[in-house]
Structures are given as C-alpha cells and as structure tokens.
C-alpha cells in the first residue's frame, strides 16, 4: 500500500486502519514486520516492503565472519593435546599414519587428525604355568649313574613299547613369568591383531620347545639357566619376526618342579639322599668309636702282660731268694735242717687233715672202715671250702 504523500496530514501508521480503513489486517504487512525484526537481530538492515532489496554486504559479511572466526578459534583450541611423559601418541590424518609424537604439548587438526595415546613405559606382566613334556628318558639318564639292576617293571606308555628303545616320557611342571612393554606404538596398534595374546601364545610355544629338548633331571636341576635363556632368545626372535611392537623386558623362570601327582615320590628321592648320607655318617661314627676303644683294649692287654711278666719274675726272685737263704743254712748243718723241715711240714699236714691210723699188718683180714661215720665233719664233696679250722683234730685210732 502506498505511503501517504507528505502533506496529506493523514495518519501514517500502517497498523491503524485510519478512518478510511475498515478492512482486515494486512498479512503482508505483518510478515514483513516479522522479517524486519529478525533482520534487526542479525544486524541486517531491514528491507523495504517494495520488494527485493539487495542486502547490504558489510553487515551480512560481518555477522558471518564473526561466526566463522568464533568457530575457527574453538577448533584451534580444541586441537591442543598433551602427551604424558610415559606415553607416545600415534597420529593419523584421514586414517593414514603420519607421525609418532613424543611427550609434550602438541597440536593436531581436530576431525581431520586422530591420536591414540600409548603408554610405552608401563611394564606388562603375565605368568604361564603348565605341564610340559620333556625329552624322553632312558635308564642311563638317572643322575649319579645309579644303575638299577632290574629294569623298571612298570608299563611304559603305549607308544614306547613299539618304539623298542624303552624310552620313557616325562612331564615337568613349570611356571614362567614374562615382563614386556610396548616399544613401537605404531606397530603395536596396526601391525598385529591382538598383540597381547600373541606374546602369550609365542611364549608357550618357546617354553614347550625348550623343555622338549631337555631331559627331566636336567630341567629340575642344572638346566634352569639354559632353559631361561633359550626361552628368552626364541621369544625375542619370533616377536621380532612378527613385528608386534612389543619388547621383552624380563623372562623369569619362577618354578620348575615335578608334577603334583608325582611330587611326593620326587621329594622322597631327596630324603633318600639324606638317608644315604646319614647311614654313612653313622657308620663312620661307629668306626671312630670302635677303633680307638680297641686300641685302648690292646694297650691294656699289653700292660697286663707286662705286669704278669714282672710279677712272675719278681715272684721267681722272691722264691729263689727264700730258697737260697734256706740253702745256705742247709749247707751249714744239713741234717738238722732237713729234720726240722720235715717235722715242720709233717706237723702242719697232720694238724690240718683228718687222719685214720691203722696199726695192722698188711696181710691181715679185710678191714671195714666206715670213714664217713667215724669222722662226722667229713663231707663227701672234694671242693668244699676249707673254712673250718678246728682246734680238735679228729683222730681215730684203730687198733686190732
């Protein structure tokens, strides 16, 4: 609707119907007013209602520019990120690998580039436990060359019989601990699917391999170091060939022992060892006791003999001295001495013994002599002790 021409003096208010207007509100007017309000908000200049007005380029541009600038600043700020001291960041642009970033502050283009943080210093660890087959054993493999005179009477497992060499399988229980870390983040993320389970499987393989080459008793005793280094070598080699991006930090053989089911028997071998040593020690103790005792006894026997020798000699000398003294006297007066000696002796004899005097001729009748009745103190036993020294001599005189 046309503006009132200036000078008309009529009310220019478009809303007011004026005196002349009695019709409904003008829709066009309403909509253009709404648009104008909107444009004011966006700092556009309102357009006239006569139709298209070309928008003023400055206002339009300023608004748009301010918006774009704000978004850009936000985008730039969002692109900063920090890589912690233990980490590295793998950066992909549109999915393609561009770089590995070291610790520090970095910037990337958000939505275009992506980063994955990988901890390259943390040491991961896992343990592997299981029973492994060792090299088959033969009779001569028992340590210390103890040869058992009879072949084992057990049934070897089915396979060995047909083998004909009588080799026997053995199992050993091993616990191994592996420590590793990520050394190449790019390879770790994008080279091998599931690298963590890969390293576990490779370890099992390396362990099985190494143990399979060794005999049971070696594994249990002297071969632990070799086992450890063999597993480590193979592990490194295989992992390197796969390029997993993982690096072995440590390989530790935690435990090597006989399987649970036979542990008791194996422990008994140790006890048998100790028993053996004990038996020998006891025997040596016996020897070191008995031999000196014997020597002591020998010395005593010798001393006894020497004592006897001395005694016999001294006795002889004493006897001889006595004899010689008497001999000298005898030489001076033989008859008297002889008589005296004889009488003394006879007196002593007859004093101490029981006597029966028989004053008969030899050719007379048979004489009955009940000696036991006549001499009451006479005892039949010859070995009776002669403790009784009686003053009285039992003398029976028989005269016929």
């Amino acid at each position: 609707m046309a503006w009132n021409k200036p000078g008309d003096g009529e009310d220019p208010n478009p809303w007011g119907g004026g005196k002349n207007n009695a019709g409904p509100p003008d829709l066009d007017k309403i909509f253009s007013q709404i648009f104008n309000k909107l444009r004011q908000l966006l700092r556009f200049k309102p357009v006239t209602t006569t139709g298209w007005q070309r928008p003023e380029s400055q206002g339009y541009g300023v608004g748009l520019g301010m918006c774009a600038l704000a978004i850009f600043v936000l985008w730039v700020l969002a692109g900063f990120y920090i890589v912690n001291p233990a980490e590295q960041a793998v950066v992909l642009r549109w999915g393609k690998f561009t770089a590995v970033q070291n610790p520090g502050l970095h910037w990337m283009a958000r939505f275009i580039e992506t980063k994955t943080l990988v901890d390259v210093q943390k040491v991961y660890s896992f343990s592997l436990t299981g029973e492994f087959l060792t090299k088959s054993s033969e009779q001569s493999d028992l340590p210390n060359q103890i040869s058992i005179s009879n072949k084992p009477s057990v049934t070897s497992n089915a396979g060995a019989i047909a083998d004909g060499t009588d080799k026997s399988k053995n199992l050993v229980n091993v616990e191994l601990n592996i420590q590793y870390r990520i050394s190449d983040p790019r390879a770790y993320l994008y080279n091998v699917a599931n690298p963590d389970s890969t390293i576990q499987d490779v370890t099992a393989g390396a362990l099985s391999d190494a143990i399979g080459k060794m005999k049971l008793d070696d594994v249990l005793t002297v071969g632990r170091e070799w086992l450890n280094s063999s597993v480590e070598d193979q592990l490194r080699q295989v992992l390197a060939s796969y390029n997993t991006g993982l690096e072995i930090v440590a390989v530790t053989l935690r435990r090597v022992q006989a399987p649970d089911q036979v542990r008791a028997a194996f422990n008994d071998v140790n006890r048998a060892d100790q028993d053996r040593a004990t038996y020998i020690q006891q025997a040596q103790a016996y020897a070191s006791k008995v031999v000196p005792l014997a020597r002591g006894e020998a010395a005593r026997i010798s001393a006894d003999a020497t004592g006897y020798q001395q005694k016999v000699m001294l006795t002889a000398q004493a006897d001889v001295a006595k004899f010689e003294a008497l001999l000298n006297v005898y030489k001076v007066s033989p008859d008297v001495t002889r008589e005296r000696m004889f009488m003394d002796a006879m007196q002593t004899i007859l004093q101490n013994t029981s006597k029966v005097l028989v004053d008969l001729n030899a050719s007379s009748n048979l004489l009955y002599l009940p000696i036991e009745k006549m001499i009451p103190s006479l005892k039949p036993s010859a070995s009776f002790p002669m403790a009784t020294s009686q003053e009285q001599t039992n003398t029976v005189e028989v005269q016929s």
Partner: protein
Amino acid sequence: MTPTKMLIATLAIVVVFVSMNGFFTIEEGENALVLRLGKMVGSTKTDSPRIYRPGLHAKIPFVDQVRVFDTRMQQLTTSTLKPLTVVTKEQTYLVVEYFAKWRIDNLAKFYTSMGGSVSRAADTVLEPRINDIVRTEYGKRTSDQAISTDRANMMAAIKAQATHIGKEQGIVVLDVQIQQITLPKDVMDSVFKRMETERKQFAEAKRAEGMEKSEEVRALADQKVTVIRAEAIKQAAAIRAQGDKQAAEIYAHAYSADPHFYAFYRSMEAYVKSFRNKHDVLVLKPEGQFFNYFHTDSHMSAAAKK
C-alpha cells in the same frame, strides 16, 4: 519470504550431506574395496580391483559401498574345545595345540571367496588344512623325535607346507608354532605312574647304596678292631712267655745249685700245700720217719742208734 531462498538453503544442506557421503577414510591396519552396483571398482592402471589404502578417499555417494578389511597379522589358534589329536609313527597319541599367523594377501580374492569374513577363513580354509599338515608331519616321526630330537626340522617342514595354503583365497600363512604338546588323559596317568615308580626305585637304590657303604665302613672298622686285638694278644702272649721263661731261668739257675735239696724242699712245700684241711683224709700206718718215736721203745733205740 522467498521460496527461492528456501530452496537454495535446502539444496545447500542436501549438497553438504551428499558430499559427506562421497568421502571415506581408511584407518591404519585396514584396507578396503569399493563395490559399485555389485562389482568391484577397478584400478585405473591395471585390470585388478583397486585397493584403498589408509587415508582419505572419494566415492560416488550412496551408490558405492565400502568393504573394509583388517589387514593386520591375524592368528588362528586351536581351541581347547576341539583339540587336535595326532598319532605318531609308533602309534602314540599326542594332543597338539598350535597357532598360525596369517595375513590377507589379496583383497579381491579374499572377498570373493570368503565374503570378507576373517573367522570363516580361519575355520574353513586354514584350520582343516593346517591340521592335516600337522598330522602328517607327526605321523612321520616317533613321539621322541617329534617332541625333542627332530622338532626343529618338523616345525620347518610344517611351516614350509603351510605357506602354500590359502593362495586361492588371498591368504598368506606367515608362521605356524606349536604351543603345547600334551598326552591324552589316560596316557598321562600311566606316565605319572611310571615316573613315580622310577623315582621310588631310585630312592630305594640310594638308600641301599647308603646302607652298603655303611656296612663297608663298619666291617672295615670291625676288622681293624679284630686285628688290633689279635696283635695285642699275640704280643701279650709273647711278653708273658718271656716272663715265664725268665722266671724259669731264675728258678732253674737257683735250684740247680743243689738239686737234691731242692727236691726235698719242694716236696715238703708240696705236701703241706696239698693236705691242708679237714676234708683230706689220711689213712696212715704209724710207720716212717714221722713215726720214728711213735712206738714205745723206738725212741730209746733210735737214740741208742745215734
């Protein structure tokens, strides 16, 4: 307002939307094929389909479909649910666990034969064939050779044969490793029994050896004791004999000065010592020197004789 502007605005949104679908990224560790109306998009240089490497690529929006494949090294592991049992040359049963490392080599072949499914590839192609190879190689060797002496050669043979698998399916096998060899359950039990008995015998042998050595030492000691004692007795006897001899010499020397007197002297001593208690009975005739003066008239006559 102006419908034109609205139309333009809407059109702009649609264009943005469509063009976003016209780009796609492939991440590291993946490759992709693009299918256009069911057929693979070909490389402009050669006749084979184009492989889309990691990075940003363009395609026809909505018409082209992108199939992404994991091109990292994959692993096939025998599961504990379906263990692989092999028989060795001497008819021993072993239970073998292994894993195989493989990679997609030819994307186009892989897609057409496997439908792009990694697990399907593992189950239908790799596992049966590698199982066969492993069985065959174990069958050629005794269990001792397979586990110990010939193991390296066997692994090399398995690996060599395995690398030929999967070429038609666009797969390449990179490695096969035996993880674990175990025995079937019943065989395990008999192995344990045998091990146990072996150790028991060993323990017995040790103890027996100990007792044997112990006996040796003791016997040696006893022998020494016997020798020492016998020696001592022998020497003692010699000393005693020496003493006896010396005494006898002394006696002989002294007594031979007057043998008659010695006889008399010694006889007297012997008589006194022999008849010395009441239990000795002398039945005597009153005759002899002792009874010289016993009879009534003898002492007179004896004195007269003197």
